[in-house]
């Protein structure tokens, strides 16, 4: 076995040094009746080329040949080569949690930089060193707000990512917490009147996503004012933080949390990703997750340590602020490297490209007879389009053009039958976008239930 450093002779020598005669004696403390009889039924062993071949075969049965316009909490962005090159350094990825600060300053300083970048982007005063992902970060934010306010009800916009709301429900479902959902208005924004009806003196927090799951940007100032008038906290969840390069940060919020996958972390079928959570300085003792703090050594040199650890499970045990043990250090490192590479100007330019491409696409699609953009509010790189006809059939047709044309919102909101959530990042080139618009135009007027549309891929590709 190529990963094991012992030779057969090493093993015998070491057994002898312990005073044992056979390797089976190593397991003498396990009663015979509890031992496994026979071998595990597993594939392998495989050599390295065989392993590569196995996974290449799996990778081939994927959508890698397709242009993806899927977003909905997982965003395709170009990842500069330097991100991967630096992540591949074994000193980073084969290290443990930096409890021994003197030999973990690399991880610690990088995480301190991550925390700083997140506060700069979100307009908050303190950020943690990452959480599992956006869904758990949002849930942790809700739990934190309930601790801070000592209240036990939550008000959540229905336009918060549906899977985030499901995770929240799993965590608070058995604690008697009431979660009230607030619908969207005609513009796609949070329905203010419904919000006002939902908040009561037991409301710990109002959770709003922006851009929300329909792609729409919420006007946070007005919402914050109302929430604070009710002595509740405002939690803003963000699934596409690239938007923060163009939109003012939700500085009125009490907690800003979300998903930083967009920053240099691959889409990878849903994970690993990198959740973030940022808040005001006065709330840091109630924050979940690891925190890196600046300090100095006995010689007065600057250094970094994990700090405020007394909030955490390994010390506080059943009284911990969260049961979280690992964070997503390596993904946070990826995000840090990515953001440093892009810098302020690069990030802004990239966000503008996303904005322009999404708006271009929205205009083109909406021109097709029967198609429309149902929500009028401002959006960033993701928007809802009402398909001209049967959305499932339209998506299938787009697939024939090697385009993944969006997420059919019916799966999350029954009332949004034939509504597609389309995300356009810098990775989609104009050729594909125009091809999609042509499919829409061609589709309009067809009744797909009766007629199979013409499949003329040569014409489509000539664009």
């Amino acid at each position, binding site marked *: *076995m190529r990963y*094991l*450093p012992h030779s057969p002779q090493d*093993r015998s020598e*070491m057994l002898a040094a*312990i005073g044992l005669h056979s390797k089976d004696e*190593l397991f003498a*403390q*396990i*009663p015979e009746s509890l031992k496994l009889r026979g*071998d*595990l039924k597993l*594939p392998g*062993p*495989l050599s390295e080329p065989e*392993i*590569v071949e196995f996974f290449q075969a799996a990778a*081939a049965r*994927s959508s890698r040949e397709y242009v*993806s316009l899927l977003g909905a909490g*997982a965003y395709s962005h170009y990842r500069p080569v330097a991100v991967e090159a*630096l992540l591949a350094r*074994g*000193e*980073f990825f*084969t*290290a443990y949690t930096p409890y021994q600060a003197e*030999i*973990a300053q690399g991880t610690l300083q990088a995480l301190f930089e991550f*925390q700083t970048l997140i506060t700069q982007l979100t307009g908050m005063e*303190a950020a943690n060193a990452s959480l*599992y992902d*956006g869904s758990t970060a949002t849930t942790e934010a809700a739990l934190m707000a309930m601790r801070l306010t000592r209240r036990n009800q939550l008000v959540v916009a229905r336009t918060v990512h549906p899977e985030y709301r499901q995770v929240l429900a799993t*965590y608070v479902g058995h604690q008697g917490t009431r979660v009230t959902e607030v619908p969207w208005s005609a513009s796609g924004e949070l329905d203010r009147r419904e919000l006002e009806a939902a908040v009561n003196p037991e409301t710990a927090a109002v959770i709003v996503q922006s851009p929300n799951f329909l792609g729409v940007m919420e006007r946070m100032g007005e919402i914050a004012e109302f929430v604070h008038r009710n002595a509740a906290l405002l939690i803003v969840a963000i699934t596409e933080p690239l938007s923060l390069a*163009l939109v*003012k940060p939700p500085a009125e919020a009490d907690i800003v949390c979300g998903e930083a996958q967009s920053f240099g972390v691959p889409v*990878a*079928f849903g*994970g*690993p990703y990198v959740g973030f959570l940022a808040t005001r300085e006065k709330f840091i003792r109630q924050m979940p997750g690891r925190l890196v*703090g*600046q300090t100095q*050594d006995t010689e007065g040199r600057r250094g970094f340590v994990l*700090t*405020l650890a007394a909030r955490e499970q*390994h*010390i*506080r045990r*059943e009284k911990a602020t969260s*049961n979280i*043990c*690992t964070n997503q250090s*390596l993904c946070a490192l990826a995000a840090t*490297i990515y953001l440093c590479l*892009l810098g*302020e*100007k690069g990030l802004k330019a990239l966000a503008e490209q996303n*904005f322009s491409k999404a708006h*271009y696409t929205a205009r083109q699609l909406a021109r097709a007879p029967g198609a429309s953009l149902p929500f009028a509010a*401002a959006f960033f790189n993701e928007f809802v389009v009402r398909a001209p006809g049967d959305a499932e059939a339209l998506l299938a047709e787009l697939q024939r053009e090697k385009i993944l044309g969006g997420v059919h919102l019916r799966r999350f909101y029954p009332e949004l039958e034939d509504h597609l959530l389309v995300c356009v990042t810098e990775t989609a080139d104009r050729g594909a976008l125009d091809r999609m618009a042509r499919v829409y135009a061609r589709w309009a007027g067809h009744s797909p239930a009766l007629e199979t549309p013409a499949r003329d891929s040569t014409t489509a590709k000539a664009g």
Partner: protein
Amino acid sequence: MKNRIRTARPHVNRNEALIFERSTPGKRGVDLPPLDVPPASPREALGDSYREAIEGFPEVSELEVVRHFTRLSTWNYGVDTGLYPLGSCTMKYNPRVNEAVARLEGLASDHPYAPEPLAQGCLEVLHETARCLAEISGMDAVSLQPAAGAQGELTGILMMRACLAERGNPRQYILIPDSAHGTNPASVTISGYQIRNLKSNERGCIDLAELSRAMTGEVAGLMLTNPNTLGIFETQMREISDLVHARGGLVYMDGANMNALIGVARPADFGADLMHLNLHKTFTTPHGGGGPGSGPVAVKTFLEPYLPSPTIEKLSDGSFRLNHDRPKSVGRVRAFYGNFGMAVRALAYILANGAEGLRQTTEDAVLNANYVLARLRDVYDVPYDQPCLHECVLSDRRQAARGVRTGDIAKRLIDYGFHPYTTSFPLIVHGAMMIEPTESASQDELDEFIEALRSIAEEIEEDPGFVLKAPHTTRVARLDEVGAARKPILRWKP
């Protein structure tokens, strides 16, 4: 004193500033391709919400970024650097092929909402990983959704609750031995249960009489780690699980220490009803400086209906699909399907080994821990004196008499070129030194490690003050943790 290391050579990269301090306006590390559509004006569309600047954001060139992070990396110690005997963390070699296959286009690029027919490769990887983990644990069904061990625990306890609630009463308490990891009580509390601590017996194991007293009709079950955090197998495991089951409870096993058992014994066979595994411990997915992890839950058939939604199914035609229609599920614990990239790596590890390789791995891990124990027992106190499995726990009792504690010895080990063992855990051992060499340590490396610990013991006799000030060779000396906690500085400010 012959091994004493007083200074290390200065490192040219020792003074790397924060990236924000290296920033100069007007620089960037990437150039974008030209925009291929007509530009739209976000300023116009967003009005008052348009953001002019990101205050303090770094502006640096690509080379500066590469140097910055390369330098930071040299301040870290990783498994690639040397022995990392951190007890209960299983710091084993992270095979390079795992990293390569996890980055293959198609696996690293597929979207979680891609149509199922176009995600068959990813679904197969998840399904195959789950199948292998079921075989290894002896369980019947596995969900890869939990993002880490602690989330696996939470998921498992919620499943216990759902199952017992359906039987008529979810009950109120969970029993946890006093030797348990801190995540156990934290996860239980978040699941809405209360803890009852079980005091260990003189072997450091569960005391059957104590268990029998505690296991009442109000108790939902027992959460245990086996082998426990002393690296000792619960030899009365059968009696323990029979007792819990007879009183209507369930047995949850924390699989943190599975590196001691793979191919030798299976939790389902010795009475566990459900468990979680740590792909980042036992199955070589890298720790990454503190994550990402992955904490799949494995359960017996009767608990399968409660697994997080969705599950992955293999159809009769050989294709795979996601099943969201699971009315009894505890719900979702994470968006999408868990840390997929970690499943790719774990499967690559299992495939590389096969059954035979995994069994050999277990044997080597246990051999290494016992070798360390055998060769240090005359110098360091062994609080629970018996053979161990994959890790051994010593204590600083003898050295404490000279004023040197486990944490100080750990810091001095750094000067000898090793990562320290786990200090001060498990809590039932005062001054614990918890050593888990894993199978990745060669005999030579173990010998050097053992010599280092023996040499430190001598130093403590001769000059304890010197050890108390260790480490002496690192980029920074001991850091002021009290100051950091009293006046937290959590971000850079201009």
